C-alpha cells in the first residue's frame, strides 16, 4: 500500500470506469467533462465541530479557492467519533470531485483502531486520494491559566501527587489530540483522566471552561486563547521550537523523546478521475500562495506547509506508520 504508483494506476482505472458508466448514461451526467470542472459548488467535509484545526484551515482555504474556480466551496460539518463520521461519509461519497475531505493526522489511525477492537474498518487510507497538505505544525501542550503550572515539570509533579484527579480533554478517543497526550502520559508515567470531546474546538472550550486542566492542541485551534492569556503553553511536540511560539520548549528539550505534528490535508474519495484531481492540485497550489491565505494562517499562528500530491503521499505513508504504532502502543481503551 506504500507504492504510490499502484494507487495512481488503480484510481485511474476506477476513474475511467466511472467515466464510461457516465457516458453510457448520457453525456453531462458525470465527471466526463473534467475540463469544465467545477460547474457547481464543491462541498468540503470538515469532520470536526467548528473551531478545530481542519475547520480554521478549511474556511479561509475555501474563501481563497472560490475566486479561482468561480464556484462556491461549501464547508460541511460532519462531526463525531474523533473524525470518523465525516471520514466515513466522504469515503462513501460520489467520487466526482464535488465532495472532498479536509482531514488531519488522525485519518491514518481509524483502521488500526477498528482492527484493535475487532471491527470491520469503516474506511482505510486506500479510500482516499491525497491531494495536498496545507499546514503541518507541532502540537502544543497547554494548561488552563487558572492552574498554577508554569513549567511542564510543575504539571508532572502535581499530576504525580494526585493520580486520576486531573483531567485532560481531547478531540475524541484515538483522535489527533488524544494520541500525543497518551504518548506523553505514558512516557512520564502519569495517571490523568480523559475527557473526550467531538473535536479540537470543543476540546479548547472544555479547557478554558476548566472542565479539563490540560490539553495537547494544534497551534491553530489554541492561538487565539494563548494570545488572550486564557491558556498557557508548556511544551511543544516539534523537533525544534515552533516559529510562532519561540519561548515554548520542546518535549525533546525537556527530556521526552516525543515528536508529534498535526497536519491538515485535502483528500478526494477513491475513484475521483485523474483530470479532476490534477485540476484540484493546480487550484490548491494557486490558492495557498495567495496573500490572503498566508495572512489568515499567520493569524492563527501557522505557516503554510504546502506539499503537492507526490510529496504529500510520501510524507503520509511514513506518518501513517507512526500513527498506527501510536494507536497500538496505547492499546485498547475501555469502552
Amino acid at each position, binding site marked *: 500500500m506504500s507504492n504510490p504508483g499502484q494507487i495512481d494506476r488503480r484510481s485511474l482505472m476506477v476513474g475511467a470506469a466511472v467515466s464510461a458508466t457516465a457516458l453510457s448514461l448520457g453525456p453531462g451526467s458525470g465527471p466526463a467533462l473534467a475540463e469544465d470542472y467545477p460547474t457547481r459548488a464543491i462541498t468540503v467535509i470538515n469532520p470536526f465541530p467548528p*473551531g478545530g484545526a481542519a475547520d480554521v484551515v478549511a474556511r479561509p482555504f475555501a474563501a481563497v479557492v472560490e475566486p479561482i474556480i468561480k464556484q462556491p466551496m461549501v464547508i460541511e460539518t460532519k462531526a463525531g467519533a474523533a473524525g470518523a463520521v465525516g471520514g466515513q461519509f466522504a469515503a462513501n461519497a460520489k467520487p466526482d470531485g464535488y465532495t472532498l475531505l479536509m482531514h488531519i493526522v488522525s485519518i491514518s489511525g481509524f483502521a488500526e483502531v477498528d482492527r484493535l477492537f475487532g471491527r470491520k474498518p469503516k474506511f482505510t487510507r486506500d479510500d482516499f486520494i491525497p491531494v495536498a497538505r496545507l499546514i503541518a505544525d507541532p502540537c502544543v501542550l497547554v494548561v488552563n491559566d487558572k492552574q498554577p503550572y508554569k513549567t511542564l515539570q510543575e504539571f508532572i509533579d502535581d499530576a504525580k501527587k494526585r493520580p486520576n484527579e486531573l483531567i485532560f480533554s481531547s478531540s475524541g478517543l484515538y483522535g489527533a489530540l488524544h494520541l500525543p497526550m497518551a504518548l506523553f502520559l505514558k512516557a512520564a508515567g502519569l495517571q490523568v483522566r480523559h475527557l473526550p470531546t467531538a473535536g479540537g474546538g470543543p476540546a479548547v472550550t472544555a479547557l478554558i471552561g476548566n472542565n479539563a486542566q490540560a490539553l495537547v492542541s494544534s497551534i491553530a485551534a489554541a492561538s487565539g486563547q494563548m494570545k488572550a492569556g486564557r491558556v498557557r503553553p508548556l511544551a511543544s511536540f516539534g523537533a525544534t521550537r515552533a516559529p510562532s511560539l519561540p519561548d515554548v520548549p520542546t518535549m525533546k528539550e525537556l527530556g521526552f523523546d516525543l515528536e508529534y505534528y498535526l497536519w491538515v490535508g485535502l483528500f478526494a474519495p477513491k475513484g475521483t478521475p485523474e483530470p479532476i484531481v490534477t485540476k484540484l492540485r493546480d487550484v490548491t497550489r494557486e490558492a495557498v500562495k495567495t496573500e490572503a491565505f498566508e495572512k489568515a494562517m499567520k493569524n492563527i499562528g501557522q505557516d503554510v506547509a504546502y506539499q503537492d500530491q507526490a510529496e504529500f503521499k510520501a510524507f503520509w505513508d511514513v506518518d501513517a506508520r507512526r500513527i498506527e504504532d501510536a494507536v497500538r502502543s496505547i492499546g485498547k481503551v475501555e469502552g
Partner: protein
Amino acid sequence: MEATFDSLLLGFSVALRPDVLLYAFMGCLVGTLVGMLPGIGPLAGISILLPVTFGLDATKAIVMLAGIYYGSQYGGSTTSILMRIPGEAASVMTCIDGYAMTQKGRGGAALCIAAVGSFVAGTFGVIMLTLVAPPLGTFALGFGPPEFTALLVLGLVFLAYMSATSLVRTLLMASIGLLLGMVGIDVMTGHFRWAFDIPELGDGLGIVPVAVGLFGLGEILSTPSRSVTTKVVSPKLSELLPNRAEWRAAAAPIGRGSVLGFVIGIVPGSAHIISSFLSYALERRLSKTPEEFGKGAVAGVAGPESANNAASTGAFVPMLALGLPTGPVTAVLMAALLIHGIPPGPQLVTEHPDVFWGFVASMYVGNVMLLALNLPLVGLFVSVLRIPYSYLYPLIVMFCIVGVYEVNHSIVDVWIMLAMGVFGWVLRKFDFDPAPLVLGLVIAPILEMSLRQSLVMSNGHWGIFVQRPIAAVLIAICAGLLVLSAVSMLRRRNDWRARLAAEEAGDAA
C-alpha cells in the same frame, strides 16, 4: 455603561452609512430567500455570497454575512406555517400551531406574529449582546458536560407539557426518538450502531428528513383531497393581520421566548436547537387554555419563533466575547474575519471596536429591515393557499423531495423522508404525536455525549450532577417540576391531562 453607549454610537455611525446599509439589505434579502426554501439554509446562502465579500472591507463583509444569518431565521417559519414543512429543527414546533392556524384561515396572522416575534426577540438579543456579552460569555463557559446533561434532562421533564396526548404516549414517542437518534457511528467510540451496512447511515438519521417526513408528507398522506374545501384555507386579504385578541395572546409568549432563547443560545454547543421546544412546552405549562395548543394557539407560534431567533443571536456571545465559534454559522463569520486579517478572540472588541460595534449596530438595523421586508411579503406568501388543494399538495410533495435532497445531496435521505412520512401517517392513526419524537431525535446525540462525558469526568460517580452549582440548580428545577406535576396529578382537580387520561381509559373515542 457610558463607554458602551459611546461605542454603540460609533457603531451606528458605521452601520448607517449608505453603502453599509446596502450590503446589510442584500444580506437580509438573500437570507430571507434561502431561509424560506426548505433544504437551503443560511450556510448555503453565506457560501453563495461569500465571493462577493472579497473586495469589501471587513465591516461590510461581516454585516452582509450576518444579514444572511438572521435573515434566514425569519424566513424559516414560512413553509412551516403554510405547508407544514419544517425547513430546520428549530421550525418543528412552529409547524404544529402555525399550520393549525392556517387551516383556520389565520395563516396571515401566524406569519405576522412570527415576523414580529422574531423582530422583538432579535432586537432583545442584540441589546443583551451590547450590554452583557463579556460577563455572559464567562458564565456560559461554566457549562461543562454535567450542566449540559442537566439542561437536557430539564428539557425532557418539560416534555410532559409538550404534547396534547397522554403522558405515556408522549414519553413513548420521545424514547423512540432517542433510539432513532442513536443510529449511526457512536460519536465517542466509533462503533457502528444499527446502520445495517448502509454507509449513508453512518452519520445518523438527519433531523430534516425525519421532520419533513413526519410533518410535511405525513400531513398530506392523512389529508385526502376530497376532505379539503379550498374555502377554509384561503383567507381574505383583510384577514391577513392579527386581530387584537391575537396580539394580546402573543405578547407575553414573545417576551418569555426572547429571554429563554437568549439564555439557551449563549451556551456553547448545540443546545440552541432545543430552545423552541422548551419555549413551546413552557407556554403550554403557563397557559390557561392548554387544550388549545395543537389546534392553532397563538402562543404556540409566538413563543417558539421568538425563542429560536433570540437563541441565534445569543450564539454570537461566545464568539464575540471569547473567540469561540459555537456553530457552523459563527464559524463562517470567524473565517471571514480571519481572511480580512482580523484574528477573532477575546481581543476583538478592544482591537477592532469599529468592526465589533459596527456589527452590533447593523444587527439593530438589520432587524428593522427584515421586519419591513417580511410583513409586506405575508400577503404574497398567503396567496399560495389560493391554489386549489389538488394542485397544491403535489407541489408540497415536490418541495419535500427537493428540500430533503438539497440538504446533503443524498437520495438515501429522501427514502428516509418517505419512510418517515408513512410512519407519521400510521402514528396519526394510532393517535400519537410526532413532535416529542423529533425532540428525542434532536437531543439524543447531545444527551448521550454529555452524559457519558460527565461520567468519565467523575469516574462513574453520579454525584457530579449535584456537586457543581449550575448543574445542581438545573436538577433542582427538574425535581421541583416533577413534584409539582405529581401534586397536581394527585389532586386531579381541573387537570386537562387527567381528563385526557380518563377519556383514553374509557371507550370515549
